[in-house]
């Protein structure tokens, strides 16, 4: 295809491409050197791989419209420039033409664009419809958007839950290469939008209803995931990574990734910190005393906290209650905040670790 030729350097190095992009994101000092450098600055696809079955089709139509637009733009500007040069005012009494209209020309410049536009419409519509009906054997994934992180569950892999994180660019969605994947998505608070540029897919995530999205990844690697519908303060931090694996590694990875367990030799507080990040607590609670959406955890342990129900000692019971029933006692100054409940998502081991971690935040 034309596009593959255009993007020869990427196509040739399909596999490392994703990881190179990831490297750039994580470490801005990493730059590709050599002959590719010039190509990468002029080629808009250099940083955007075509990593799903939809990508090439969408790009081909995009390119088709680019070429048509360029043709018409150059034509219009060329004619305008020529007239500007040819008919600039030479003398104040210079005569001008008495032409007021021309039916034939006007019909042509209405009809030709109309035909081209219908062509583009049909092409776009056909491609769009392909994106709306997922194959019946698609891998099922459920996505939940919250201010400001994503939670991803795999119904076929019980217990596995991946979460995006404000502070780390962590893997949020893992999918097998070459297999259709269907996401069923909803939001627990405001509008969000699940957007994977490398796959050319995007869909709003709406509270109170389920929206659906499907794709089939064609490249192994890591790709950016964004929230594309403005959702408040940390909208731009609601990002993550989509990891595409060879199908045989997929199940293995999920089994491993689903575990949120204390590792050997890992101190309890360090495990608690991992929970803090993995479960998205960091989206709203800072560790440095600055208030985010919720109160900071710094110096919280053992404190007499003023809440809307009176004062309360911050101890094991209060922390557990705040995680499972966040609106039971709300810290003064945060009355309007609607923290989602985490009931059933943390076990006793997790609570022990989390509380141990909070104790260290003096």
């Amino acid at each position, binding site marked *: 295809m034309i596009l593959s030729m255009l993007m020869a350097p990427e196509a040739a190095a399909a596999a490392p491409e994703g990881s190179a992009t990831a490297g*750039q*994101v994580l470490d*801005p000092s990493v730059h590709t050197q050599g002959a590719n450098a010039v190509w990468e600055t002029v080629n*808009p696809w250099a*940083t955007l791989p075509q990593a799903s079955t939809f990508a090439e089709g*969408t790009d081909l139509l*995009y390119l088709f*419209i680019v070429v048509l*637009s360029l043709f*018409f*733009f150059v034509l*219009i*500007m060329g*004619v*305008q420039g020529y*007239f*500007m040069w040819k*008919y*600039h*005012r*030479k003398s104040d009494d*210079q005569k*001008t*033409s*008495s*032409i*007021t*209209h*021309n039916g034939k*020309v*006007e019909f042509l410049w*209405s009809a030709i*664009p109309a035909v081209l536009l219908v062509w*583009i*419409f049909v*092409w*776009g*519509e056909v491609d*769009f*419809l392909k*994106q709306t009906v997922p194959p019946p054997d698609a891998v099922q994934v459920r996505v939940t958007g919250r*201010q400001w992180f994503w939670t991803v569950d795999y119904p076929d892999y019980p217990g596995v839950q991946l979460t995006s994180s404000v502070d780390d660019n962590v893997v949020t969605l893992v999918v097998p290469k070459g297999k259709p994947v269907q996401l069923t998505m909803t939001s627990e608070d*405001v*509008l969000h*939008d699940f*957007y994977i*540029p490398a796959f050319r897919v*995007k*869909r*709003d995530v*709406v*509270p109170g*209803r389920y*929206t659906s999205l499907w794709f089939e990844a064609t490249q192994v690697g890591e790709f950016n995931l964004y929230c*594309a*519908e*403005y959702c*408040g303060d940390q909208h*731009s931090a609601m990002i993550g990574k989509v990891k595409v694996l060879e199908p045989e590694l997929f199940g293995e990875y999920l089994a491993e990734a689903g575990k949120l367990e204390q590792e050997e030799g890992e101190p309890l507080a360090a495990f608690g910190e991992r929970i803090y990040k993995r479960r998205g607590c960091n989206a709203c609670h800072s560790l440095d005393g*600055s208030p985010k959406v919720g109160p900071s955890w710094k110096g919280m342990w053992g404190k007499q906290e003023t809440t809307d129900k009176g004062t309360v000692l911050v101890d094991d019971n209060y922390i557990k209650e705040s995680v499972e029933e966040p609106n039971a006692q709300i810290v003064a100054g945060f009355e309007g905040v609607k923290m989602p409940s985490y009931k059933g998502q943390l076990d006793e081991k997790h609570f022990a670790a989390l509380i141990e971690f909070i104790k260290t935040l003096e």
Partner: protein
Amino acid sequence: MADDKSTHDAGHEREPSYLVAQKGLKSWLFTVDHKRLGLMYLATTLLFFFVGGMAAIFFRTELLTPGPGEISGVLTALGMDPTTSATTYNKLFTVHGAVMVFLVIIPSVPGALGNFLLPLMLGAKDVAFPRLNLLSFWVYSLGALFFIYTLFAGGLDTGWTFYTPYSSNFSGTAVISATFGAFILGFSSILTGLNFMVTIHKMRAPGMTWNRMPLFCWSIYATAVIQVLATPVLAITLLLLIMERTLNIGIFDPAMGGDPVLFQHFFWFYSHPAVYIMILPGFGIISELIAVHSRKHIFGYKAIALSSVAIAIISFVVWGHHMFVSGQSELAGIVFSFLTFAVAVPTAIKVFSWVATLYKGSIQFNTPMLYGLMFLFTFTIGGLTGVFLGTLSVDVHLHDTYFVVAHFHYVMMGGTIIAFVGGLHHWWAKMTGRNYDEKQARWASLFIFVGFNMTFFNQFVLGQQGMPRRYYTYVPQFQQQHVLSTVGAYILLAGFLWIAFYLLASLRKSAAPKEPLPDNTWGGASLEWSTQTPPIEHNFHGQPRVDSDPYNFPQIDRTGGMDHH
């Protein structure tokens, strides 16, 4: 004939202009003179243009680096809490959007130039309802006060689109005062539209048939139709939003049994036609600029006039193209995509007709014409990139990215604002009786052209690469392009400040011309050029009569050619 028109008011002694016919602050604040109201709209919209523009300069500065930094630095320096910098960024882009849409672009051309010119162009003494016109202005000012209050009451962080349920139940900012402000502004818009419609129907000078009306009036007419029909929907929507927020009545928030997508339908049912409220008057200005400065009969008068009306009608049935990925049904998406392409045809006809007008003309490259030609460049890009977004599969990728930001800035700014600035120069002498410095004006227009394209063109590429809009921080790979955009914005700022400088300088007492300026600045053939510069209080000494169309310039060679009328 044009000659008759330009001599119509000749032979009368010079009378005091409308600027000095009455004196004192009260004679301005309670004036029913459409020309004075036009100037007051002009001053207010330009003031808000500065406010909205500076907000953009601040958030573009923040985007110089991928991470947080610039705003929190400023907040720290001001002794404020630097951790609120993300909120500050969100407030800045919201203020920019809301101010530019509701307080600048919607009232700018109709309120300022429309008010000033419409009765003059029609050969009328004033608009049909002068007192209603005064009321429109004060209603506009009241709405603007609500916006100013919003700025001081903690700002607004919902984006100018007020999407629910974020705006109704999550944002902690001054949503109610802002939406109520927009609600009030809507009434101003409706009253102005109504006034203009009646004026055009009933106040045209004897002999001015619909087909002899300047195209600017046609575009104002098409705009007025949309203002009257669409704005009430916005008013109702915003009222429902206020009710949900204050009384907890579930309309849009699913937590209370509402539907957030319903809000988007309501909102865009107004706001898409509103896009044409914003751009159609710009089209009208361009038709005047291109014809007058090439002294050439406009090409395809009827096509341009009727395409404005066609656009106004079709604009009511394309709102769903803002919602291709929002969760509306696929069938709705397909229908809206098709209708969106339908609106592209009349728009293309206009561009082709303007370019064709230049053919065998006598083109003078003075400042207004430079803006007219610049418009053809920038608006054509704005129009063509709309095709990408109307195309379903391509929009899925580009929706809510910088591509959209670039597209609507090429239309709203590269279209309306460029046309507005061009029109301001075109009618500046007529409005103020002063000449600006032509040399400075040409240089400043170059700054605008370079700055504008530098700011926004590469945002198409940013969007194509997947950079979402409304992002406070971004991944480092986009930094180069963001820096380019920000530098472009600074150049644009310099250009606008320069324009403000030489326009204000032309108003100084010492800059007053020794001889009164000629009635006809550019050799135009429409009626506003036949009266004194600046016009007298009641516009014309007698009732002007029209026996020719407004593009019948004396330079037109009538000796040959089949199409001569």
